[in-house]
Structure formats: C-alpha cells, structure tokens
C-alpha cells in the first residue's frame, strides 16, 4: 500500500505557467496544442462577451475566448507579451484562450498539488482544480480547463 502511494506521489505533471492580471495560473500541458502570438481576431457578433471571435490557425478557423473575461477579471489589454494558447479538449474541440503572458513550464510532482475540494469552491475558485506548491514555497493556481471553457448556463 505504502509503495503504491509513493509511486503515485512521484508521478509528475507538467504545467504551462501563464499570467492573468497579478496572478499566475498553471495549465496542464497535455491539453495544450500550440501557443501563438496575438493576432487579429475576427469578431463574431451576437455571442457571449468572453468569446472574442475566431482566428486562422494554419487554415483552420478556431474560436478564441478571453480567459480574463470568462473568469470575471478586468478585460484584456493586448500587449507584446499577450499570447493565445490553443487548447485541444475532448469535449469542446479546439479552442484558443488569451492570456497576458506565458512564463515557463513547471513540473510538479503529485504530492505538490493540493486539490481544491468542492465545498471550498467559491465563485473565484470555480475555475481551479488545485493549487501547485513550488519547492521554494511559491504557489500557482491550477486551472480546471473544462470549467474555464464550459459555457455556464446563464452567462
């Protein structure tokens, strides 16, 4: 029993660390298809506010949403470091989300990830599935991508 637990704890997950406002968030790398520079987004009328529009990604039309607007943060200000992260999710297909900056890739062992339990989920924490703790004591919030992308009823 003990051994199994150790094995699990040593399993690692890689996260891309992005910046949204003042906070850092982690995105599980297995969902990330691509990271592209900010480009012109063609607006699509009559859709949810957080859906910024569509872009051309190598001949495919991909919808792009603003992670900030979706999570209730102030609207994006596009800068040189703004990136579109192209996610490939089973449920929703390919979709891009805009982030302020892409910092680095971190590898976290499972024991460094603290799951957020459901009852403690406040509105703000709705989009998180856990908190990652660095060796040096730093913290990042780990995004629950399905919750981020999901079109909540009434939004």
């Amino acid at each position, binding site marked *: 029993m003990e051994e199994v637990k150790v094995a699990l704890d040593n399993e690692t997950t890689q996260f891309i660390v992005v910046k949204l406002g003042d906070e850092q968030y982690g995105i599980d790398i297995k969902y990330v298809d691509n990271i592209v520079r900010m480009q*012109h987004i*063609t*607006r*699509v*009328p*009559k*859709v*949810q506010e957080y*859906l910024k*529009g*569509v*872009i*051309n990604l190598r*001949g*495919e*039309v*991909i*919808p792009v949403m603003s992670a900030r607007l979706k999570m209730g943060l102030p609207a994006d200000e596009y800068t040189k470091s703004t990136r579109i992260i192209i996610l490939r999710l089973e449920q*929703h*297909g*390919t*979709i891009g989300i805009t982030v302020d900056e892409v910092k680095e890739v971190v590898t976290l062992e499972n024991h460094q990830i603290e799951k957020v339990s459901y009852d403690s989920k406040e509105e703000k924490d709705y989009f998180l599935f856990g908190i990652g703790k660095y060796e040096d004591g730093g913290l990042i919030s780990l995004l629950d991508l399905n919750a981020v*992308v999901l079109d909540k009823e009434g939004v």
Partner: protein
Amino acid sequence: MDVSQYLEIFLDETKEHLQSLNTEILNLEQDPENSDTINEIFRAAHSLKGMAGTMGYKRMQNLTHDMENVFSEVRNGTIKVKGNMIDILFQCLDALEEYLNTIQETGEEGSNDNEPLIKLLNDVLDSKEGGEPKEVKQEKVKSADEEGGGRKWEEIKFDETQKRVVSEAASQGKNVYGMTVRVQESCILKAARAFLVFKALEELGEVIISKPSVQDIEDERFDLDFSLIFISESSLETVLKSVRSVSEIEDAQGALLEVEQTEGVVVEEETQNAVPEIVPEEKENVPATEKPAAVPPATVKANEKKAPVSKPVVNRTVRVDIEKLDVLMNLVSELIIAKNSLVSASVGDRNNSVNEHIEYLESVTTNLHESVMKVRMVPIESVVNKFPRMIRDLSKKLDKKMELYMSGEETELDRTVVDEIGDPLMHLLRNAADHGLESGEVRKAKGKPSVGSIFLDAYQDGNNVVIEVRDDGAGINIEGVKNKAIEKGVITPEQGENMSDQEIINLLFHAGFSTSEVVSDVSGRGVGLDVVKSKIESLSGEVEVKSKIDMGSTWTIRLPLTLAIIQALMVDVGGEQYAISLGSIQTIEDIVPTDIKTVQNKEVIHLRGLVIPLIRLSEVLDIESKKNPEDNMTVVIVKKGDRQSGLVVDELRGQQEIVIKSLGKYITKCKVISGATILGDGEVALILDTNALF
C-alpha cells in the same frame, strides 16, 4: 473469426440487395410471369443469405433462407405470385431492414426471430401441391469449366521442410490430402469465405501449404479458387463435407496423396505428374494472384481475358472513403487560399507575367475543384428508389389508388446532400398521398381519373438541383389553412385578412401546424413541414409550394450543387469584411437616403414596383457603420424564396470564390453567421446567413 472489417461492405451490399429486391418484387407484382425478374430476385435473395451467413447473422440467414425457398418455387413455377404473397415478402424485406439497422447500430442482429413471418412463408410454400422445399442448385451450368480448374492442388510444389512434415505425418498414419476449393463467382467476400474454409479445416487437421499463400488469400489476391495440402486423421469425405458446408463455396475437390517416405509426395492415381515439378502448359491455370514474376506472359493474358467476365457489369462504381475525399477537398481548399493570397499580393504590382501565372493557377484550381466535386457526386437514385414501394404501401393503407411517376433519378448531388434529402422527400410524398390526393369517389365526382398521380421530378438548373414533388390532387385549401392558423394562434384574424394566398400557403411551414382533420399515422402530427423546411435550409437549400384548387400542389426543393466552395460577394460593414453567397443575391442598388419610407416602424424601399424591407447590417452585427448617413447607401437585395430584403452595407469589395469553414461547435449562439472563410491575406471573414435575416 473477426469479420468486423467486412461489416461495412456487408452493410453496403445488403442495402443494395434489399433495394433491388424491393424494386424487383414491385415489378413482379405488375408482371408475375417475368422470368428475368424472378431470376434477379432469386439471385439477390441468395447472395443476401450467403452474406448474412458469413457474417454470422443466423436469424437474418434463416429468414432469407425461407424467402429464397419461396422464390425458388416461384421460379420453378410451382407457386403462382399472389397479392398476399407479395405483401408477406415486403414484410420480410422490412424485417431484414430492421436487422440491418440493428446491426448498423450495435453490430449484433438483435433477438427478433421473426417467427410469424417465417411461418407465413412456410404457409405459402405448403400451399402448393407436392413440392418439397429444397434449395435449387443453380450453379450446375458451370461444372463444365470446373474440370480444368478442379485439380489445381496438383501444381503445388513442396520445399524440403514441407516434404519432411508430410512424410512425418504419413508415418504417423495421418492422411495427406490435396484439395482445391472454388468459390462462387457471385461471391463478394471471397477472403471471408476462404477464411471460413481454413477455419473449418483447422478443426479437422492442419493446413501445411496453400496456394496462393495464406497472406494473399486474406488480402483477397486470388481469383476464384485456391488449393491446399492438408493433413488430417479424418476421411476425405468428412473434410470435403465440412468445406462445402461453408456458404457460397461452389465446390471443393480433393484426393488422398500417396506419400513416399524418401522421395516426397506423389499423387495417388488419375494424374501421373510428379508433384514437385510443374509442367509448363499447366500454368495456364495458375491464378493471376500468384507472384507476377512466376507467371509467364501467356498466363497473364489468359487471365485478363477471363477477368471481365467474372465480375458482374451492373455497377461500375469505386467505393471511396469519404474521409479521403475530404482530405483531397481540404487540399483543394488550401490551394484556393494560396491562389487568393497570390491575387491579393499582386494587386498594385503591374507585373504581367505574375498575372498570367495567377490566371493559370486559377484555371487549375477551378478544374481541380470541379473534378473533386464530381467524385463526391452521387445520383439521387439511391434515395428515390425506395419511394415506389412506399407509395404502394401507402396506397393500400390509405385505400386510395395512386401511381408514382419519377424522372431524373440520375441527377447528381453531393453525397452529403443525398444522404440528408431522403427524409424530407419522403415527408412531402406522404403528404401528397395523404393530404393532396382525394379518395377515388371524390376524384370521380370531380371528373378526374380515379387513380391519383404523384410526380417526382429532379433536374439540374444552373448551379442548383431542383426536385419537385407534384400531385394532381385537391390542392391546398387556403381558407382552411387560414382558419386553422387563426385557430392555432399562429396569426391573428386581422393579419389573416391582409395576407396574400401565397403567404397563407407558406404558413404550412410554420412549426406546430397540421391541416389534416384526422391525424393519421401516415402524415401529420404538426411536426412535419417545418422540419422539412429546416432540414432543407440546413443544406443551404430552399423549399417552396405552389397550389391550385382541384389541380394539385407542387413542392419545389432547390439545392446547391456544392456545399464546400461557393462564389461570394465580399462586403464591408463597419470596417469588418463579410461574405454573402452570390446565389442568394438578386441585385445591388444605390439608394438615396431620402427614398427610404417607414411602414409599421420598419424601413422599406420601393424598387420597381416592389416594397422591400431594409435591414441595416450594422445593427444586426452590433457595429457602428463607418458611412456618413447622408451619403447614398449601397443595398444588396437578397432573396429567400419569393421574398426579398435589402441589406445595407458600407462598401462592396468584389466577388470571390471562398472556401466555407465551420465556426466549430463551440460558437453556436450566432444565428446570422453560417460559417467563416479565410481570405487571401490570412484574415478570417464571416459568411452571412441571409436566410436567417428574414
């Protein structure tokens, strides 16, 4: 045995056979004595049984077997074709179709034994005197040419190890057989049959050599027969019997091989050829599937002559995986995008040679596009073929006499459209039969022939395909529709007063509307015509109806030939570019703002005697127009059926061939946009769905 790889072809073939059975049985009802029809039916039923058997669908096989018995008696002339027998046969076909659907969904045939049907079939069989239901050996004619090919195992060479295996087996008292198995010419899943033969043999002993090789047989690289050397303790009788029990195996011949321990193998009697050496003349019989290097040219020729005969000439189609076509299609799309970027790069640059190249590229891409589209085109035949049967059933059910006349079945449409068009058409036909046509007495009273006529005509009209469903029935009762609409609250009585006849007829497409007084199970629960309409519109088509009292109604479906690449007009609205399909554009007008009138709070313009409502695209698209409101306005007049609207745009950008891309399943809320396209400069432009603006 894993037959799943054959499942797809099984489904396709079975559908074809069912369809031809349906058609032929209908013919049989008209002309019970026609022996061609009966033979055709028998062949189809027979293949159906064989295929079901191979795939292991026992219930399906049983049912077809009993049907085949009936057909065989009909063919022998011992039973006469009667109305109720035709009905039973049709029920059987329906049951088979049900099996097929279940198989398609679940891979299993389900648990319905259809015993009542089988009993009915057997009753039909019992009704004739003195005949015993037995299978007819239909392939006897061919036995003549079997003589030559029947003993091909004699050509099999043994290598050293195989010789050793054989002599070892012989020393253990086992029998060594040579055997040639011949599958029927009509057999479709040859490899599957062969597999079953091998499986049957492996239960009895061991196959040591096969020719062609097992791999070739699995890949269906053999003609009609294959030969084996086989070791077994069972008798030759048993072995041959178990091979022949595999369906669609025409014959299996074999003989015991005499094994001489030292020298190898010699055939027992009959032929004197020593097995290890092949006499050259005998090579004529080597199947074409053997390695080409080993076959002398003469053999190749002989086989070439034979090959066309062995395949039925009925349907010369190549099945192409749609996904592969999609890939090709996407490549063409890319090419067009590349061309567009060249075009936009060359604007301003007056270099003539570049323009020449672009023109050349343009003609290439257009041709390529056309030919790929042609590959995707299939005749609507596959869909409309089932309608005569349906009308026959309806005629019985509704107790009205009617005939269906079809024309233009060869008209071709994109595969995706053809797949979708069946249900709407079926609905319109049912409507025509149920609501359109009057009963026999009423028709007589009106001085019309007592048999009603329904017409299904398809033809190509420019870039569209038109399918018309026409009946010579009562026509649409306009007052009836109006009253019903008012009663159902679809319109107010005042609105009803002001509506033209055509507008009232169009109410039929309104959701929740059925005019039939009695809801029958044939048509009408009020979910019909609006579904037809939305289905057709989802295919970028349109449907209209015209009707005259006592003359009948005509339903016209208009569908675009292609869906993936269209000609479009590019327009500017508030600095954004949008594409409008050229097919829906009527004219483009320059309008002075003072010409705009207001009717019921809506802006309209007068244009050549027509009042056309204006739609300001900037408002629809939630964007500020960049134009001075006092300047002349550019208005694109678009049509939807008989109606027109004027779309106010900022500027025209010109015509362009665009590749339609989906917005994906994530963006669903936007109804006015039907898709997107990628422009020459790499930007995405949205395609307006003008139908949704009305």
